[in-house]
């Protein structure tokens, strides 16, 4: 127990944002954050299965990966990397805004993060629709003939269907996380407008931030693994 908490307890009044079962804001905030870090650990292991699938497919079909990644547009991937890195920055700044009690900084940085997240998804949409058009689809739906017809050199050795399955499953799962993050940010905006967050109480904002950074973190690995690797 820190000094603060015992003070809060003896003072007898309950701070506005303190839930009934906690003794102090410090306890409440650190609980929330610990919970979030545990959730992030869970996220890391959730994605581990996908990265494991990637590693195994690469062990089996190295030549496929070398050839197939050429069919992904690394420029779009790089653009998306910049989008996500910038959104991570704005997210970190939003948390800083809360720390220094600036409602404005909080609000506009979250808006910026939201916009960058949306930009990421728009680019992803263009990439996906391109693949769809060319028949570069996962598993059973992979259509080399259609791709060749569209002028895409899809005569790839090994198992291109597996490469595209992994590409779609990994980026799709990641994209879903981006979407969930954006939903959380909309909720944050509502709460910021309501004036819920200040330097004392912003663990929710911080937690959404942590989540958003882990989403960024996963993309930091996905980008070179899928788009760049030789």
């Amino acid at each position, binding site marked *: 127990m820190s000094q603060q908490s015992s003070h809060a307890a003896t003072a007898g009044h309950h701070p506005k944002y303190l839930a009934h079962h906690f003794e102090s804001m410090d306890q409440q905030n650190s609980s929330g954050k610990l*919970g979030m870090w545990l*959730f992030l*650990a*869970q*996220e890391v292991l959730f994605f581990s299965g996908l990265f494991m699938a990637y590693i195994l497919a690469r062990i089996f079909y190295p030549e496929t990966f070398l050839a197939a990644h050429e069919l992904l547009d690394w420029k779009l991937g790089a653009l998306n990397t910049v989008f996500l890195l910038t959104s991570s920055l704005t997210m970190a700044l939003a948390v800083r805004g809360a720390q220094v009690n600036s409602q404005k900084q909080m609000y506009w940085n979250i808006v910026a993060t939201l916009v960058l997240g949306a930009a990421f998804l728009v680019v992803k949409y263009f990439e996906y629709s391109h693949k769809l058009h060319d028949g570069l689809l996962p598993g059973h739906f992979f259509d080399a003939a259609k791709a060749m017809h569209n002028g895409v050199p899809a005569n790839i050795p090994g*198992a291109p*269907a597996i490469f595209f399955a*992994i590409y779609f499953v990994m980026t799709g799962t990641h994209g879903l996380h981006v979407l969930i993050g954006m939903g959380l940010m909309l909720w944050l905006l509502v709460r910021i407008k309501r004036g819920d967050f200040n330097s004392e109480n912003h663990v929710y904002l911080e937690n959404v931030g942590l989540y958003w950074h882990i989403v960024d973190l996963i993309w930091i690995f996905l980008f070179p693994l899928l788009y760049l690797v030789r």
Partner: protein
Amino acid sequence: MESNRNSQLQSAQAATSGGAEPSYLTAKRGIWSWLATVDHKRIGLMYLVGVLGFFAVGGILALLVRTQLLGPTTGFSAAKQEWLFSGDTYNKLFTLHGAVMVFLVIIPSIPASLGNFFLPLMLGAKDVAFPKLNLMSFYIYIFGGALLLFSIYDGAVDTGWTFYTPYSSSSSSSVVSAVLGVFILGFSSILTGINFIVTIHKMRAPGQTWIRLPLFVWAQYATSVIQVLATPVLAITLMLLAIERTIGVGIFDPKLGGDPVLFQHFFWFYSHPAVYIMILPAFGVISEIITVNSRKEIFGYKAIALSSVAIAVIGFLVWGHHMFTSGQSELASAVFSFLTFAVAVPTAIKVFSWVATMYGGSLRMNSAMWYAQAFLFLFTIGGLTGLFLGTLSVDIHLHDTYFVVAHFHYVMMGGTMTAFVGALHHWWPKMTGRMLNEFWGKVSCFFVFVGFNLTFFSQFLLGTKGMPRRYANYLPEFQNLHQLSTYGSYILGLGFFITLLYMIQSLINGKKAPANPWEAKSLEWETDSPPIEHNFHTQPIVTHGPYDFPEIDHSMSTRGGH
């Protein structure tokens, strides 16, 4: 019950006056006060009802499976008579029995029901760290369970609870709904785990240091760590399986260039640690029951607490012992076998410590203690037979035979479920405010013990003889042992049925329970039976360990004992 009909105003007044505060059961009324509750005790109780309900479902399925194996054997002649179920029906029955028992009963049994109820009480907290999340986990559990059972309506799944590919990616049965159900159940487990870890870290009462925690809390802590770290891998594995079925990823499907053995790695990376999710809470329960009823300090507190953590960590390193015959590489088999033996050491330490705790005590042989002794007996057999299966050469013979079936039933059923029922006897007075009938408690324990050993010991012999598992029928030479096993299962079922009866009786007209019927020293016994809504009248301050009983004679030499 009279006072409960009074208005909320009066209960609020009672709260200020102290002693007459209503219990958590009566503080709020109406169905909505249960369905939308964030009180960990009510959520724990709802979990308990869910778990016991699913236990009944899984138990009936088990009896059907056993009854099928009673019947005339079919050889390999053209005329295959079916005595009760067709091969397909039988396959669906054992699949459902396994899936229900593992995902809906054993995994949530002790952690989600008793853990939810007692963890905050033992820590001296008002609730778990995230009460709403806790309620959400419960509904995720119910939803996942419903989806899993929906697969019955949808034609039922026939892959075995392990969902091995490529059978599961090609089977025409309702794999997707079952897999989705288990996927969702996983998140219930993860969220509960997160909640418990944070609760243990942040919600301890003043003075409740780590070495003053009851061992049940330590066991829950280790369990939660595994739940958080292993369950997401199951989720992603099942997601990959579902995608494999629909679009054909090709990692597991040999037709697309994958390797089905990889699925087993993915699956057992979760499912072996899950074995420890199932057994560690039982260890915690046994530590509590034996200590309280021996009226002594637990023997080797730190060894037991840390061995839980050690088991949790080493438990992640041994999954390949499920795969010695699967076609995994020889190197992998050898490494996994070696590590498997490493996990046996902390388990042995626990068993020895429990027995040593009884030395020089003053044993109260109540029905909870009877169940704890049954646990020691059965779990020792379960643990020792694990040695056969961890050994590379011997496992080649025993793998996927009834020996394995018997082994994991001795651990899961003889271990976890016996401990769970024992724990219900121990904590029933606290949860319901009523005592259980001691005589019938012992009778049911006796039936469970005898029935269990008849059912499953004969299966060790069957397995050694070479009887493969998951067979809807078998060669005549196995019939005697199979019949013995089936009769045993009826006795086992009877034992649990008796338990159900006297539990209902206790709820209706059981003796009122005092606050601390077993004179225990951990915090959950320091509040009323049943506890008040916010657990304690005043914030407890902890000044002693959980097993500091008044009978302990500190003047005695610690070397000589009695």
